[in-house]
């Protein structure tokens, strides 16, 4: 009864094409934004902000990035981790070379470096697709990871071969480095993620998104309809890598505070891929849901059993997480290939007609 759209008429094309055509959805998104911007920072402690919300938002952004490429354009990529790394290291170099420029600008600009890298490694997509392309992106993963460890210029010749985030300020408030508060960092991450999600939503609902989906559904047919495959696929690689790069830069600058190349290894790529498989391929909402499930699952496994007097080892938690995630992947591919986002759609449909069956 709550979710009724009776009486909501669409009187023009704009309202028909709206991203949230139903009033309840619009209210819902404002409630979520209100909770994210006001309630969580007010009520949450440092643990909630630092260990749950910030990483969740960063992973969600990376998932959106990969989803644009894999879910919307149908090009499977296993190089997400490396593209995130390019963003992180580019941001680090930029801020050490030009320390006076605002760090938030560099976080965004570093996305462009990642995008350029993505285009270079996306070139094979012209000729190949499917798992052939996945292997080609593995080349990006391993080559870039090698660059992060073996080219000392990238990490400023640090002895530890790791990067350490310098302290940067915005309007007198410390926003990066060890002295920045969790709340400040949370606000920056949240603002960037919301803005970029809004951008992504506009991209996928517009002409570009439609060409991507046409290429995904059948590239030959798309080509016959006049979509040029090469620019379309490369644009998808560029935008996707841009998102991944920004999230990588945020990961190091606003969450970890320092990183080694191993942060951006192949497992990171898989984690992001699993987020979008479970969340829903080709769905922005799915990127958030998947990121939440995959990231928060280990936290739950770690903190809930002790509440019931069952002590678990950190290693055991990790092993169980692997098993559960692996099983979930297979389960979702079999039962609901469109992921959690589709489950939400079904739930919404049920809510609409409730209490009647149809």
């Amino acid at each position, binding site marked *: 009864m709550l979710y009724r759209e009776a009486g909501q008429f669409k009187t023009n094309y704009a309202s028909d094409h709206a991203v949230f055509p139903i009033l309840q959805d619009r209210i819902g998104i404002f409630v979520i934004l209100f909770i994210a911007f006001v309630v969580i920072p007010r009520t949450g402690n440092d643990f909630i902000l630092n260990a749950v919300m910030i990483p969740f938002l960063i992973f969600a952004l990376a998932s959106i990035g990969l989803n644009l490429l894999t879910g919307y354009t149908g090009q499977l990529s296993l190089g997400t981790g490396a593209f995130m790394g390019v963003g992180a290291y580019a941001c680090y170099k930029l801020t050490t070379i030009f320390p006076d420029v605002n760090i938030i600008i560099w976080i965004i600009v570093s996305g462009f470096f990642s995008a350029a890298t993505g285009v270079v490694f996306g070139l094979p997509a012209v000729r190949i697709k499917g798992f052939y392309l996945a292997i080609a992106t593995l080349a990006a993963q391993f080559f870039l990871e090698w660059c992060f*460890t073996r080219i000392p210029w990238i990490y400023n010749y640090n002895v530890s071969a790791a990067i350490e985030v310098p302290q940067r300020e915005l309007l007198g408030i410390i926003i990066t480095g060890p002295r920045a508060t969790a709340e400040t960092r949370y606000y920056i991450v949240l603002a960037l993620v919301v803005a970029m999600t809004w951008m992504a939503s506009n991209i996928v609902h517009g002409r570009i998104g439609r060409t991507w989906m046409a290429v995904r559904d059948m590239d030959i047919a798309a080509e016959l309809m006049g979509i040029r495959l090469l620019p379309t696929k490369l644009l998808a690689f560029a935008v996707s890598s841009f998102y991944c790069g920004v999230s990588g830069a945020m990961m190091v600058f606003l969450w970890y505070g320092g990183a080694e190349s191993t942060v951006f290894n192949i497992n990171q790529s898989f984690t992001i891929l699993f987020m979008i498989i479970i969340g829903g391929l080709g769905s922005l909402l799915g990127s958030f849901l998947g990121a939440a499930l995959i990231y928060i699952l280990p936290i739950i496994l770690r903190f809930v059993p002790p509440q019931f007097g069952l002590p678990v080892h950190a290693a055991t938690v990790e092993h169980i997480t692997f098993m559960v995630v692996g099983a979930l992947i297979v389960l979702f591919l079999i039962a609901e290939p469109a992921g959690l986002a589709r489950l939400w759609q079904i739930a919404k449909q049920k809510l609409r007609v409730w209490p009647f069956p149809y």
Partner: protein
Amino acid sequence: MGPLYQIFIDPFVQMGTAPDLFVQTLWEGMVGGMLYALIALGFVLIFKASGVFNFAQGIMVVFAALTLVGLYNIGVPAFLALGLTIAVMFGLAFAVERVVLRPLVNQPDIILFMATFGLTYFLIGAGEFVFGGDPKVMITEQLYLPKGAVTYKILGGIISVQKLDVAAAVIASVMVAGLAVFFSKTRIGRALRAVADSHAAALSVGISLEQIWVIVWFAAGLVALVTGIFWGARSDVSFALDVIALKALPVLILGGLTSIPGAIVGGLIIGIGEKMWEFYWGPLIGGGTDAWFAYVIALVFLLFKPQGLFGEKIIERV
């Protein structure tokens, strides 16, 4: 000495002046390549019969080795452990067919490919959960595998050859020959080839796809076990090996996805190429280059010859 000299001439001068080192590197590369080839072989078996690009093959290698060592460590005699591991691999093949392949039949290839990612993670988690995540030592002596090295004095230097590597080469060759005979002479082998040629035609003459899938996954599991034993003997058994296991993917690209000789030749090319590259050219750009060499070679192949050396040309129809 200019950089051009260092890149194009110096490595070859080194090869000429120290032929013993050259032969040693070649041998090391061959042994490494053989292991890549064995993993790739498992891939090819499954891909031909079920069209599934089994990403988990590399992990199955580690899983098999871990099961063997884990069983031995809890007190099972070595050969009984070997038998039990074979049983576990059969159980795995059966479970995969039931739980993963059968519900996903007729789905797009890429969905099945991603399902094997899930399988990979499940196997990693299950293996570590049951047997612990710490690196383990492979039981080579208990399985009567030779140990130690033989050194030869030739070409003005000393070349040392691990006996284990020779044994691995022999057993691998026997296994490949056995598979070849199995495929060409037996009834099941013929059925396997029929399924590889056309699923629909095979079904229509009464071949059970489900049975065939269990058999090929089991065969791939056996290949994985043999690979795992020799691999584990060269370094400790742990899932840290999975990064190396991924190297079988470029091998497949090189050899072609559907060709067993391709897997072997591709494996040897990648193995030898990467050792040579790392030994002679790697130091020029900082070392550790064997992490990506194989993938870059695969990338080049994908751009110019996507079907690989021996693969069937992919013809796309609308």
